[in-house]
């Protein structure tokens, strides 16, 4: 049974992420009163990109080519550590949340390096911004994970998001709620979503994440897109388990889990539709705010 669930989760990890992008886009188009692209459009895009060839600038080196591959690999490995629907992850050990956070960091590092490798001042600016904001988002993510660790009394992601979590809501409800709020903000920032960044923007001066990947094409771009959707799925999975982590029995909790991920995607779409992008100088404020919330949550648990 547990084996079946693990297989299901790995399959979901590989297959579902582009669907989340589709759901986000569909939500946005409904808010805008458009018909919008089909739900499966991201899959078609990926298929199209994978069939194309790639063009590489002569100034780039292997670093540029390695960027998308390392990025995707790192995010996918992070996915292996993530427990879904209350079942243990494929891989888990005490302290694996540190590895989880740093695998995400590695993916960002590879992308930023690839962007710098192009030698374009423009992409360098994007990389600088991305890393600046990441340096603020990372402590917040760690603080949130610490809150989970403290509330459940375990040090592995499988434990933090495992069976102890629903019980922790009774004893540490306010702290977990704060952590969930902070985590949602971090999810928006990490995935380059409004109000931090706009994935659809092509206004050069305001881009953050998108500007870094302008020079990638074909399969490389497909990897990057797929990696981004995977990352969105990872955050959706944590939040879904944190907020919807109820339900007895395997079937109920699995159903709730996938429902939660879907709700998360809709939520991101709603935020993107109703909010405007923040000015770049205000972004650190948002991220520090998320850190402050998680510090407060931690203080509530430690007192």
């Amino acid at each position, binding site marked *: 049974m547990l084996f079946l669930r693990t297989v299901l989760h790995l399959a979901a990890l590989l297959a579902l992420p582009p669907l989340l992008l589709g759901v986000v886009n569909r939500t946005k188009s409904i808010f805008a009163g458009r018909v919008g692209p089909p739900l499966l459009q991201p899959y078609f895009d990926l298929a199209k990109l994978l069939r194309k060839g790639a063009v590489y600038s002569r100034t780039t080196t292997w670093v540029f080519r390695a960027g998308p591959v390392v990025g995707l690999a790192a995010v996918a490995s992070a996915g292996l550590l993530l427990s879904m629907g209350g079942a243990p992850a494929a891989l888990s050990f005490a302290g694996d949340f540190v590895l989880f956070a740093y695998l995400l960091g590695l993916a960002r590092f590879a992308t930023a390096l690839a962007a710098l490798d192009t030698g374009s001042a423009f992409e360098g600016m994007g990389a600088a911004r991305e890393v600046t904001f990441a340096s603020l988002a990372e402590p917040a993510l760690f603080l949130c994970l610490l809150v989970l660790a403290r509330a459940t009394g375990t040090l592995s992601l499988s434990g933090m998001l495992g069976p102890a979590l629903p019980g922790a809501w*009774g004893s540490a*409800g*306010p702290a977990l*709620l*704060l952590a969930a*709020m902070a985590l949602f903000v971090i999810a928006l920032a990490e995935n380059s979503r409004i109000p931090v960044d706009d994935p659809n923007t092509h206004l050069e001066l305001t881009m953050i994440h998108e500007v870094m990947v302008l020079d990638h094409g074909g399969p490389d771009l497909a990897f990057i897109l797929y990696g981004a959707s995977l990352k969105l799925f990872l955050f959706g999975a944590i939040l879904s388990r944190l907020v919807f982590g109820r339900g007895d029995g395997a079937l109920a909790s699995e159903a709730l889990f996938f429902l939660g991920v879907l709700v998360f995607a809709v939520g991101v779409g709603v935020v993107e539709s109703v909010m405007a992008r923040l000015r770049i100088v205000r972004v*650190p*404020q948002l991220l*520090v*705010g998320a850190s*402050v*919330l998680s*510090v*407060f949550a931690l*203080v*509530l648990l*430690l*007192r």
Partner: protein
Amino acid sequence: MASFVDLVFVLVVVIDLFLLASSRLGAAIRTVAIQGALLAALPLLLLRETHHLGHAILLAGGALAIKGLFIPWLMFRAIREASIRREMEPIVGFVPSMVLGAVGVALAFAFSSRLPLPDAGAHAFLVPTALSTVWAGLLLVVTRKKAVSQVLGFLVLENGVYVFGLLLSDVMPVMVEAGVLLDLFAAVFVMGIVMFHINREFSSLDTEKLSALKD
């Protein structure tokens, strides 16, 4: 139930932190109104056998009417008449003031359990919430430049005092009502802005321009 009361206290503190970071006056006023409404619910949520129900209802109703509705309405009128919407960069920036606020909150929550409370049954979050709210209010008053923001800071400060007053509601109810009286003071204060029309004299509610008097 206990967890729900926890949540109200925590939300009050989150609102303090939000206000320290917020630059839009309209949003800030609305948030202060929400905080006022949350505080108005507290006397009823914290009701115990030793308290008078009538007194709690009176307090809750009064707080809701003044903190939740009347003062926000006045404030909205003030910013509409002066047609201002944003705080400018404050004396201490938004991020530093938020971090300062968070430090205060952390200290309040970490150490308040050491304070000797005569009433052992009091809610554990009450004193730290009161102290952090007072601290946030002080920060707001001291660091902001617009008259409206300073009044908002004063309201937050006074909300903190009110929360603390709830601790005394069975010992000396009259004193707690004096706390609500402080609101009336604030109301007059707010009307002062409208009446005195700082904007008419100075064409904005910016207290930076109130700087003719100095040594």
